């Protein structure tokens, strides 16, 4: 079918350039409920997505470019779909641009080979490991778990000469621990996505979540507080790199499309912080080459190869992250999709960051800062107060502040970790944040 689509596109004189993405996925899903299996599912799907770029003219007669995108299911009507794409592209009026020229695309490790060898068996092994590990924590009960595996093959071909293929796997796991009894029960809900089963760090994560569950049973409401706040692990990764439901502030403000529209105040060579930097200098890369990174890809939807882009160097913006179109408009090198957020190791040990009195945020209900201003007021699902050598859990209250101000006054740990879309320090001590108790 790919050849038929290529032939139809190549013979259409109205099309300036085109890209075809052929995605095939095969997945296995298993849902556990206490000691039994609630549901098992197998899913297969296949789709061709076609972008066509056409020359057009805007309402004032100026030259313009228009993009039309259609998706075609296997066996679907090709000519009608392409006709619709061309018609749409001719009606859309953007400043002229062109698709990406071919560039060298390196292989990238995105596949869990042991999963591919036996998808159903490996998913079962993950769930069995979770159950076995949980048996070591008699104070918690595993009441539900879901594990999905998916293999995705992508073949991208473009009229510019890009012809690239990649395989990737995606492993998703969620589970629920319940502690306590009756109306005093508490839960910990864990949800994680990685490319490889090994990167789930299952035993370690299960132990951490079991500890959180017991601590929640003892947790009280917090007092209002202002001072140092320590954040670690996956929760720190969400603050820095965002997650599925709430994007990353750094990603938003470094976007070339927002630069073009005038909505980001950031400028190359200027500090990203509105005020003085009181903590460690901040450096970051947008790294789509990171092996097994969840947002890593050998090439993105436009065929732009994976890159490790210096994003921020010693607090100064080094690059905007740009697709082909906005790179063309702003005269930048296209970087393609953002990828993982990579931060360098800090210079302070985690042990040192945890000295003295501080609050630690173990989990938010949802960390969702304003995507433009960075202001946040987020409920704390579990935290700890460290004072005079005593560690007391708390729940509730809100961490209130501004993410850019927080990143300008932070010390990072020398120990690093990988959390799916983030590679960098495992812990950070924000020197002055507020908790509304």
């Amino acid at each position, binding site marked *: 079918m790919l050849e038929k689509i290529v032939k139809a596109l190549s013979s259409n004189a109205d099309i300036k350039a085109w890209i075809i993405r052929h995605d095939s996925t095969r997945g296995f899903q298993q849902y556990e409920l206490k000691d039994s299996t609630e549901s098992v599912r197998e899913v297969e799907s296949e*789709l061709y997505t076609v972008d066509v770029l056409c020359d057009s003219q805007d309402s004032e007669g100026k030259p313009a470019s228009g993009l039309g995108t259609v998706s075609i299911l296997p066996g679907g009507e090709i000519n009608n779909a392409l006709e619709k794409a061309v018609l*749409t592209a001719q009606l859309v009026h953007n400043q002229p641009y062109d698709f990406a020229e071919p560039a060298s695309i390196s292989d990238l490790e995105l596949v869990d080979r042991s999963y591919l060898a036996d998808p159903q068996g490996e998913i079962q092994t993950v769930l069995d490991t979770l159950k076995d590990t949980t048996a070591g924590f008699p104070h918690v009960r595993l009441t539900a778990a879901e594990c999905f595996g998916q293999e995705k093959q992508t073949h991208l071909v473009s009229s510019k000469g890009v012809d690239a293929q990649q395989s990737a796997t995606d492993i998703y796991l969620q589970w629920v621990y319940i502690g306590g009894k009756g109306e005093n029960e508490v839960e910990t809900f864990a949800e994680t996505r990685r490319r490889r089963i090994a990167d789930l760090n299952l035993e370690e994560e299960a132990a951490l979540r079991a500890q959180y569950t017991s601590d929640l049973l003892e947790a009280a409401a917090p007092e209002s507080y202002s001072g140092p706040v320590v954040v670690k692990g996956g929760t720190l990764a969400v603050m820095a790199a965002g997650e599925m439901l709430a994007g990353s502030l750094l990603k938003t403000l470094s976007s070339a499309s927002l630069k073009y529209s005038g909505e980001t105040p950031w400028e190359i060579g200027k500090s990203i912080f509105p005020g003085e930097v009181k903590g460690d200098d901040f450096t970051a890369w947008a790294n789509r080459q990171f092996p097994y990174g969840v947002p890593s890809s050998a090439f993105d939807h436009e065929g732009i190869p994976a890159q490790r882009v210096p994003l921020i160097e010693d607090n100064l913006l080094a690059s905007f992250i740009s697709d082909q179109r906005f790179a063309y408009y702003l005269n930048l090198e296209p970087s393609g999709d953002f990828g993982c957020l990579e931060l360098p190791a800090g210079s302070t040990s985690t042990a040192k960051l945890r000295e003295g009195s501080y609050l630690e945020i173990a989990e938010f209900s949802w960390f969702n800062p304003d995507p*433009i201003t960075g202001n946040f007021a987020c409920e704390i699902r579990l935290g700890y107060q460290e004072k005079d050598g005593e560690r007391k859990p708390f729940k509730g209250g809100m961490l209130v502040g501004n993410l850019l101000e927080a990143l300008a006054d932070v010390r990072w740990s020398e120990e690093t970790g990988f959390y799916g879309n983030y590679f960098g320090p495992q812990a950070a001590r924000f020197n002055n944040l507020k908790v509304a108790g």
Partner: protein
Amino acid sequence: MKDKLLKPGMEKLRLELGEVVGILEARSPYGAVTLSSREMTRYFVDNTQERVSTGEPTAGVILRTFDGKTMREKGLGGFHKEEVIRAAKSFVSGVDFSSNGKLDPGPERTGDFQTEMENDPALVPTDQKLDALRDMNRRVNAIDSRIINARVSFLEMREKTVFRNRVADLAQDIQRVHMGLMITVMGEKGAVWDFDSKCGTGGLEILAFSDEELAELVGNAIKLLDAGRIDPGEYTVVTAPGVSGVIAHESFGHGVETDMFVKERAKAANFIGKRVGSDLVNIFDDPSLPDEFGSYFFDDEGYPAQPTQIVKSGIFERGLTDMFSASALEIQRSPNGRRQDFTRKVYPRMTNTFFGSGDLSVEELISRVEEGIYIPKVSSGMEDPKGWGIQVSGHYAFEIKGGKVTEKMYAPVGITGYVPDVLGSISGVASDFSLSGGYCGKGTKETVPVTDGGPHLLMKARLG
């Protein structure tokens, strides 16, 4: 004029589904087949670009059997008869059906249903839709010179479904539409943004924005330039319908989806028949509401849409079920079995979830507040079914002084509290009613269209 009820491939395969159910039930105590097609097109215009893109369409067949303990499903792309019959035979061949579990297929029912609309987007040319968005972009930009971008988006989503089991043969064609506006304004301290949207099941006729609505949106965005942060603490609060709705959604919406009961995740399971709010609190879920974004004619397990009262006069009545959880808990079904698309499992999910209205005017409600906060717009919420904590983010809020809303604005404003405390503090319910639409996930996945809302409410809550 309307588009055809089903795609030709679905219509043809529908005729064979009795045979497929027969193959599944030859060995299984329950078999069902769903044909599902979901297509989405998004139109976008802002100050710097225009886009028309199709969302990833899904079209496929779900074969479902129950082996007595476990629900088994196979999702197949496309609508090919031979492939489906072959897959059905192979699907049941390796399964042990010796367990004695049963599932109730429900009452006998047949019917074909289609969204009522005056102006079916499927029949409106692309250039007309783009021109409407360009016009909206121009209207917004003309209001104030501080606007640096006005994003206008229009989404049309078509869901065509056939459900067949041994007693049901149903088809529905649902058109959902969504118009979103997001404007960014620039001031001395930087950029801020505000948004508004309209949506529903219906045609383009439900998406018009008046000049007054656009002016209010821009006016509030400009006020955001000088908004301060609220001093954290407990306040007397009046919530507008959108905020009230997210409180309903996060408290007695997610927390009463009965898979949460089966998984022991719901604190509400211990509160059936018990008080969870003041006498003024009534909460409903109703997929049968006409024209609403979360509505349908039957759920993804073929159960007919009808209203469910979740909380009645402050007492928790019942939860929202799918087939599996209702069977496991031995409770009556409600029409809430929903799946994102054919690649995903059914869960009990909300549809249109809302507080019931009271009898006070909004002005009377606000006049009762000597000092407090009015929260007119919500930006997000998060559930906590076991802890019953609330996290709702107000995009902004205004001070109330002497029974009047002042111009003093705070942003953003986080609302937190313990669900029974917040619902128990509700001391006034207005007579107005409106719903706002959007998408809801379960955790970070399983997205389905929903609405939530209700009237203005007067309550106590912790803000920060």
